[in-house]
């Protein structure tokens, strides 16, 4: 049996058009994964990244145009400068292959650990609008799809044209979770996540579904994490059994474990952990201690508390499936899935979540969680077959080295087309914090002059501004340095659409950028398919069928065919304008106007051609488009 094709998990329906998306991930999203896999799939691009220069240029052009349409509506929220518990690996930012991606997709970081894996995908369809809610254990990286087994839940709900608070409330903890996440991401993030809350307010939560979220919070103030887990099943009717399967077990001790059990409402002796023995393939790899990790101290605490461990089978167990029924022995992927099963009497819930079994993820009693986590619970059976551990030994690891607390906690840089503005947060005032704006390879960085201020918690808040109004090159990232500590943040491009549209297409020879943009713009409105070498999509074979000796059986009159093709582009453009009219989406309106203006200019250029059959249709198309633009301006 062949291994499952990991890209299938990314597929989208071709009838649906993406209107907005929010992704949360622990690690900063991998731009290569987004550019080469996730985005082309979700955007239903017609091309694939190809090595041939011309095709490659078209691919990136098509991608950029679609991203331009969705500019400000695609968000990625990841961790800031914190650490993931259990993994113990400080966040690192390898040099990005596609730094321009963040012009289009808005990357936000939160001050703390963002460990939830939530996707909210807003689709339009001829029958209405839909929202996909995906909650899983999957980060935004190729490795997460290709090398790991994940657990996930996906639901699609149809959106009502109108919002209601009653509907919004049906989503339970998901709503405050999103609000908290937005707030933690800063002003711009809060504004944009609010859009997704509005989408939730247009649909009811599917029946039988509950959300369990964790938000970094002060002790005892709110019900997050373990407390929410305990709310899943009603009290009474017997004791609560809790089964856990997660690849990372945190640094529990008997106290913290007892506090967790209390918060959940379960007895420690009814807690069962699915784990691997020392011979399991997942006990190898990683940094030498395996990709699944449980500190010996946590194991001791579990045993002492009366919790039990059961074993996951593997190759040695012959006919036993590796992880679950559809996972073959030969599959080299390891499980990154995290799920919890709760049973009380006949009631049961399966929780699919981002949360490892750790105090940071769940909190411990009065102490709230340290991470943002999100899970979804529904009625389902425990999915794994477990074996007794004897005579094997559980795979255990050393105590994780706690990295030095991060100095640079959070930063966000924005560019409005005039100036780059930085906001940053540090734990300490010294050594001096400096910041520079990077404009891309071969460009001198721009130093940011910073102003500092200490907040109530004794942290250093700083702000800096530097002027930059050139459309090219654009500011890519800001690098902050404070002693040994370094933090790089992408620059959020907040230029108005008119200015943004002047940005050359990424990964495309700047000399061809405008032509390719025109060709793809025409294509996007139903014009001819842009082909390598025929950017403008115009017949290039002489003066038409008669002069060029085209087939005498072909009735097409070149000038008519061309004129109708251009007018069809105009009609499609008008249709989109009419479609957006009811939504009051100012950004979309502006973009469509810009498209119209650009198309009119393109037609005008074509109207300067020598060939009559091309010149006249283009001239008439340009004229009509200008009429329409004028009419729109008059109406608005």
């Amino acid at each position, binding site marked *: 049996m062949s291994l499952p094709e990991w890209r299938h998990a990314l597929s989208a329906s071709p009838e649906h058009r993406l209107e907005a998306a929010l992704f949360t991930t622990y690690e900063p999203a991998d731009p290569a994964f987004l550019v080469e896999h996730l985005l082309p799939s979700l955007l239903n691009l017609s091309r694939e990244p190809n090595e041939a220069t011309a095709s490659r240029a078209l691919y990136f052009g098509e991608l950029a145009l679609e991203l331009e349409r969705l500019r400000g509506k695609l968000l990625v929220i990841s961790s800031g400068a914190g650490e993931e518990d259990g993994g113990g690996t400080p966040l690192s930012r390898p040099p990005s292959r596609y730094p321009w991606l963040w012009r289009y997709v808005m990357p936000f970081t939160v001050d703390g650990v963002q460990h939830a894996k939530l996707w909210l995908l807003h689709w339009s369809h001829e029958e209405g609008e839909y929202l996909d809610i995906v909650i899983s254990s999957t980060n935004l990286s190729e490795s997460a799809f290709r090398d790991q087994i994940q657990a996930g839940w996906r639901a699609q709900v149809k959106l009502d044209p109108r919002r209601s608070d009653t509907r919004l409330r049906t989503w339970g903890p998901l709503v405050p979770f999103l609000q908290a996440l937005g707030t933690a991401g800063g002003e711009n993030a809060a504004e944009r996540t609010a859009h997704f809350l509005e989408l939730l307010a247009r649909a009811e939560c599917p029946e039988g579904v509950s959300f369990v979220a964790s938000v970094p919070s002060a002790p005892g103030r709110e019900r997050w994490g373990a407390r929410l887990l305990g709310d899943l099943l009603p009290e009474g009717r017997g004791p609560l059994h809790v089964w856990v399967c997660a690849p990372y077990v945190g640094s529990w001790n008997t106290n913290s474990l007892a506090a967790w059990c209390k918060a959940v409402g379960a007895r420690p002796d009814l807690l069962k952990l699915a784990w691997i023995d020392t011979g399991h393939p997942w006990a190898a790899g990683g940094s030498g201690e395996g990709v699944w990790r449980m500190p010996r101290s946590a194991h001791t605490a579990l045993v002492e508390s009366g919790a039990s461990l059961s074993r996951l089978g593997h190759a040695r167990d012959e006919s036993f499936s590796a992880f679950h029924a559809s996972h073959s022995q030969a599959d080299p992927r390891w499980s990154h899935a995290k799920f919890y099963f709760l049973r009380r009497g006949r009631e049961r819930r399966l929780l699919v979540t981002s949360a490892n079994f750790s105090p940071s993820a769940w909190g411990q009693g009065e102490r709230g969680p340290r991470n943002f986590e999100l899970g979804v619970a529904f009625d389902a059976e425990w999915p794994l077959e477990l074996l007794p551990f004897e005579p094997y030994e559980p795979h255990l690891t050393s105590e994780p080295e706690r990295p030095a607390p991060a100095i640079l906690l959070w930063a966000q840089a924005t560019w409005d087309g005039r100036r780059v503005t930085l906001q940053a947060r540090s734990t300490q005032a010294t050594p001096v914090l400096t910041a520079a704006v990077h404009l891309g390879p071969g460009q001198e960085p721009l130093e940011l002059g910073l102003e500092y201020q200490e907040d109530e918690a004794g942290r250093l808040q700083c702000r800096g501004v530097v002027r930059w109004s050139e459309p090219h090159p654009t500011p890519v990232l800001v690098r902050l340095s404070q002693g040994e500590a370094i933090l790089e943040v992408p620059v959020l491009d907040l230029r108005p659409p008119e200015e943004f549209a002047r940005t050359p297409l990424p990964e495309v020879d700047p000399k061809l950028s405008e032509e390719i943009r025109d060709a793809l713009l025409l294509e996007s409105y139903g014009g001819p398919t842009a082909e390598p070498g025929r950017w403008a999509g115009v017949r290039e074979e002489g003066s038409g069928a008669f002069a060029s000796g085209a087939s*005498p*059986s072909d009735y097409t009159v070149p000038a008519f065919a061309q004129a109708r093709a251009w007018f069809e582009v105009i009609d499609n453009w008008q249709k989109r304008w009419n479609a957006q009219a009811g939504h009051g989406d100012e950004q979309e309106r502006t973009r469509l106007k810009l498209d119209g203006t650009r198309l009119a200019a393109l037609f005008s250029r074509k109207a300067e051609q020598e060939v009559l059959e091309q010149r006249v249709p283009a001239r*008439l198309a340009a004229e009509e488009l200008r009429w329409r633009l004028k009419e729109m301006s008059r109406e608005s």
Partner: protein
Amino acid sequence: MRAEGLPLDGRTWRFLQNPDAYCEASGWRLAREPTRRQFATAAEILHRLSRGNGNPVRGVLLADDVGLGKTTVAALVAWVVAGNCGNVRVLAPNSVMQRRWAEELEAHLEPLARRSNFGLDSSRLKAGKVDRLHPGRVQVSTHQRLVGGQVNPSCDLLIIDEAHRAKGEACAFNRVLQEQGSLARAMLILTATPFSISLGEFRQLLGFIGADEAIGAVQAHAQLLDDLHRDRAGRDVIALGEKLAGTARAAIEKLSPYVIRHGVDDLPAERRHFGEVALQPWEIPVEPASEGELELLLRTDRLLRLTRRTGGERTNDPRFHVGWEHLCSEIEATEERLANAEQEAIAKRSHDAAKKQLGLCIQRPHPKMAAVARAISSRVDAHEKVLVFCHHRATALELLHQLSQELRIKPRDPSGLGERKWREIWSGLLRVPSDEGPAHSRWPSDVEQLREVFLDWLCSSGVRAQVTRWLPRVPRDAPALTELLRTTRVRHRPEDGVPTIAQAANALFESLVDSRSTSTLQLLRSISAGARFPGAMNDGDRTLGAWQPNEGTVHPLNLHTGQPDIVISLFNSPFGPDVLVTTDRLSEGIDLHRCCRLLVHYELDPSPVRTLQRNGRIRRVGSWASLTRQPIEYAYPRFDGTRDARAVEIMKVRLECFDLLLGGVPKVDVEEELDSRQSDVSRVLAVAQSQLKSANRKLTVR
């Protein structure tokens, strides 16, 4: 079902083996070459229908090319059947053709009386009668009368002329034939285009003649042709071409007992009798569409799309490409739809811009019309008559107007003899009713009065000016003019067969006052009461139009809207308007070849059948081309840069393929946009061509 066959005595058509003697008996009115073939064909048909051959067929389909004399063949067959005490019904497509049939049948009475023992006389011919049909009689009626239930198809032999009109299952004529056709014991079906647009339709004609055994093979070929025009990727062009030739051969094999077909190209010995077609078509250079004209066409297309009611209306009407009038009216008509357009403001701007552009363009005549008018003018100046076909009445009207302006003859008489003198001379030259002559019996009682009407016209200033141009010198006095009219051949032609002016005038007069042409007689009588003579050239107008205009349309004086008989007579004479503009109303079964060898397809019907039918109007036995030994010239002017040019190009390809593929060329609406699939089809046809050419010859009589 096995056919019963007609009880014919084989000896009664032996005369068909000796066409020369028959030609002689006709006073060599009939030429030897076509007559031989026509006789052989008639004998073959009689043989196939005859019970005596042991394996008779129920019917025969005679599918000779236009102009080869199918009527003559059928008339001979009809008389032989009648001579064997059979009764025969002929169904002509219309009353004009009914008259022509009567003439044809009557023309054979005298020679047949000499060459056979039938004892035939004119009492055996019942033209236009619908009463009981007695044995030994031939009755001529029309399709319409059969449909109307006035004619009972019961007879020994039913001859259906222009039978392609019975194609199409929904057609009423077809329905009646389906229901009542079996009442005829045998059938002879005449059509030049039996395999026209769809081979599927041909199946119905085969059903009428009992050729059911051939239907399967024809259907197989039809299916393959149909598939040929369907979308299919990666087909093997050569294999498909050969397969097509194979199915065609199989179909022809099965058809051969029932179908007889001669193409003009199969008969080299006869060509001179109906005229050779010029090797090169008559080229009429038309300026390609200018930027302004193209802009107008594109603006109109867009405007109509912005204002159409249902979304399905045509916006690129073929008429837009060949004249201004239809464009004007369509742009005008959008005005009331502007308010309902999705974007009223845009539609209004589009309308205003189109109207403005139209105003600029119509300041000069339509380029194609202007070019065609110039070209025709030069040919008319060289003493030719020109026939012009349009597909639409609106275009024909506009073209007629344009030609009328371009083609003016100065109605002056350089001899200075005056109308009175001319009248005296013509009165002396024109046969008087008391004269003996073959046509005498067909003259109406008021022929004297009608003669005055004709003389008025003949001596009108326009006709006098026309005739004067044919004279070799200006006559000094009346005797000189008389002599010149008596001895000068018409239209500057020196050839022996060409009539003199006086002969031609007498022939025209006879034709006009033929008592069978009721519509012409009626018209002449109304002229004597003050109505206008069609084709009066008093104002120097050398053009005449003939079609039925749309109701409520104002039509010019030079458009004849009544029965076309008088127009046909005039155009077949050297006198009167030099240019006849008409629609496809006159494209079938009408002779227009007696004095014309030039034809302009101003607009094309998408069907190649129609084009062939039109061409056949001037390529017939005894044509002006054969008489004057000049080539027949067809012009397909095209307005480059527009759909009109594409229609011409495509027609060219279709005409090349038509005969080779049993006419299996799909009908294409000129509004339809085709793609490159068609070139693939052309390649398949090219492969099949050579094999199909020889296969079709199996249907000839040898």
